[in-house]
């Protein structure tokens, strides 16, 4: 019989039929015993490498992880003057207040749900209208055989991506600005064009499209496509030009016309890229660019009905109700993280599936 206590140290020697000590296990134990000593030696030997890590670790600690500590303020008493560390734990009343909205929280809770709905809708419409655009652009770019013409068109379409949010939103504000009845000036040039082709009523153009909550989502999506569609097409275009010309030739010999080639050659080849990009996008659904929303809606209270998202909602109440603001962001972030992790898991599986 094998003694249980010594099992790890003893191995059956097949040649003699006896148990003997396992030298490898002794080494393993030795390593275990001196683990921290070895760690210290390794760090001392390579101290320069660890020194190099320090700036990065400090930057992330101070400005990425410490804010997460501030997030704990969502569990505490609402008192903006005192730092988080000096406040009492208050349980989940901030969360409850936002979600259920009893008593004094009534209006706040309504605004929170409105912001949540807007966040989802902005993302969802982005998925519906913004996501297919780069794919369509990439298909078109593939048709342009002349490299010169294509690079010129690509330069044009990538350009807005490199402009700041301030510049983009300033241009949007200026191009669709309201007219003035006092000085009898017409609205911005794009607003004029839109109303003259009948897309929007003239009164809306005159009063400023940005002041009208009905149009905020459309403005957000269209300016989003203008900003990113060209640049986002790079990934899809790279996938399309990686398709071997022989695939097209084989399809042509089989009598496939352009549509059939699209359907049976191009789409299957870029499907994995599309799936991965789509899933990544779903993972980022809750992280609406707060800067753009703030810059487009700041000071236009009427548009909050459609323009308020969770982060801007939290930002606007932070001075008086920092605990509630943190709670709103906390919920947004946790759901966002679950989406990202879920999306990553699915992407990994999808990518594996597409490998065969």
């Amino acid at each position, binding site marked *: 019989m094998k003694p249980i206590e010594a099992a790890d140290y003893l191995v059956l020697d097949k040649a003699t039929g006896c148990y003997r000590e396992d030298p490898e296990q002794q080494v393993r134990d030795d390593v275990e015993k001196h683990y921290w000593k070895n760690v210290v030696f390794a760090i001392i030997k390579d101290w320069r490498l660890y020194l190099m890590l320090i700036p990065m670790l400090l930057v992330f600690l101070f400005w990425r992880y410490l804010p997460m500590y501030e997030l704990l303020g969502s569990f505490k008493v609402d008192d903006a003057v005192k730092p988080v560390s000096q406040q009492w734990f208050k349980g989940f009343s901030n969360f409850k207040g936002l979600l259920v909205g009893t008593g004094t929280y009534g209006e706040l809770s309504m605004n929170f749900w409105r912001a949540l709905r807007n966040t989802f809708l902005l993302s969802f419409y982005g998925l519906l209208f913004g996501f297919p655009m780069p794919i369509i652009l990439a298909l078109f770019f593939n048709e342009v055989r002349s490299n010169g013409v294509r690079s010129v068109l690509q330069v044009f379409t990538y350009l807005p991506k490199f402009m700041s949010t301030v510049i983009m939103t300033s241009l949007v504000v200026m191009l669709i600005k309201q007219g003035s009845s006092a000085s009898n000036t017409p609205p911005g040039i794009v607003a004029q064009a839109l109303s003259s082709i009948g897309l929007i009523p003239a009164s809306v153009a005159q009063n400023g499209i940005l002041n009208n909550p009905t149009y905020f989502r459309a403005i957000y999506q269209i300016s989003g496509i203008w900003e990113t569609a060209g640049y986002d097409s790079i*990934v899809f275009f790279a996938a399309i030009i990686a398709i071997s010309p022989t695939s097209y030739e084989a399809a042509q010999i089989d009598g496939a016309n352009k549509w059939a080639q699209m359907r049976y050659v191009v789409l299957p080849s870029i499907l994995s890229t599309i799936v991965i990009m789509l899933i990544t996008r779903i993972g980022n659904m809750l992280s609406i660019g707060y800067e753009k929303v703030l810059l487009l809606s700041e000071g236009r209270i009427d548009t909050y009905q459609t323009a308020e998202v969770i982060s801007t909602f939290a930002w606007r109440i932070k001075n008086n109700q920092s605990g509630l603001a943190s709670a709103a962001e906390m919920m947004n972030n946790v759901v966002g993280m679950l989406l990202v992790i879920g999306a990553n898991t699915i992407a990994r599986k999808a990518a594996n599936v597409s490998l065969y």
Partner: protein
Amino acid sequence: MRRRLEISELIFKIISYTLLTVFGLLCLYPFLYAISASISGRHAVEYSEIILLPKQLQFEAFGYMFRSNEFWNAYSNTLFLTIYGTVWSLFVAILGGYALSKKRLLFRKVFNFFLVFTMWFSAGIVPQYLNYIATKGVFTSMGINDDKWLVVIAMGMAAMNIILLRNAFENVPGEIEEAAIVDGASEMQVLTKVFIPMSKSTIATVALFFAISRWNGYFWARQMISNSAEQPLQVFIRDKLEFYTDGENLATWTENYAADSLIYALIVCSIVPILVIYPFIQKYFAKGTNAGGVKE
């Protein structure tokens, strides 16, 4: 032998060229309009008579701006933030990415997770803001009481850029590093003489990402810099836009050119540096997205 174009192919080609041209021109139009409006006369701008080409030429809007100290001040603040910010971010990212690329680094997985976790979970703007307020005192006591320097060291770091650099360093063959060590190179020399020259194009890409995000930075500069004379150009532009889209302020406007022209002129001045370097950097950006696109 040239293959005859199928009719379906021809139709698709025509559609592609047409729609791409239309989309390309639409992307470009707001910028062209901004340039035209910045040099057009007051009446033409206020009554939206410009469609593409400038009318009633004037250069007073630019002239006013170039004579304004405020403008040059904002411009130099932006340059300050961009130059020092890019150098600092690059310094941190290269050192961090290099250390992380080494297989012999202990707790490598922990450090990687520390980095990647920030891509999954971000605290959000309110906690970040509260954190800046809370930690400001710490930096003041350390002698960093200049808001501009705080923006330089605190902002603009992205885990993705460090991961791009780490991947590039991992692709440098180990034999070259060994050869350098045999020749007596120190850790720092291995980095500066072997790894950095061999990953030049990735470093250029990451540097450009950093520089563009610094040049375009608005929100946190506005929140963190309390002295308005130290605000960068983006904040300056936004302030002017808010001021002159307000009807009351506009009523007191007496210049020979439209207030809009001034804003357009500011926009043009802010994008010119990017336009000038854009043709040279465009290919790096395309490369960067492909490298970062579908990896791990």
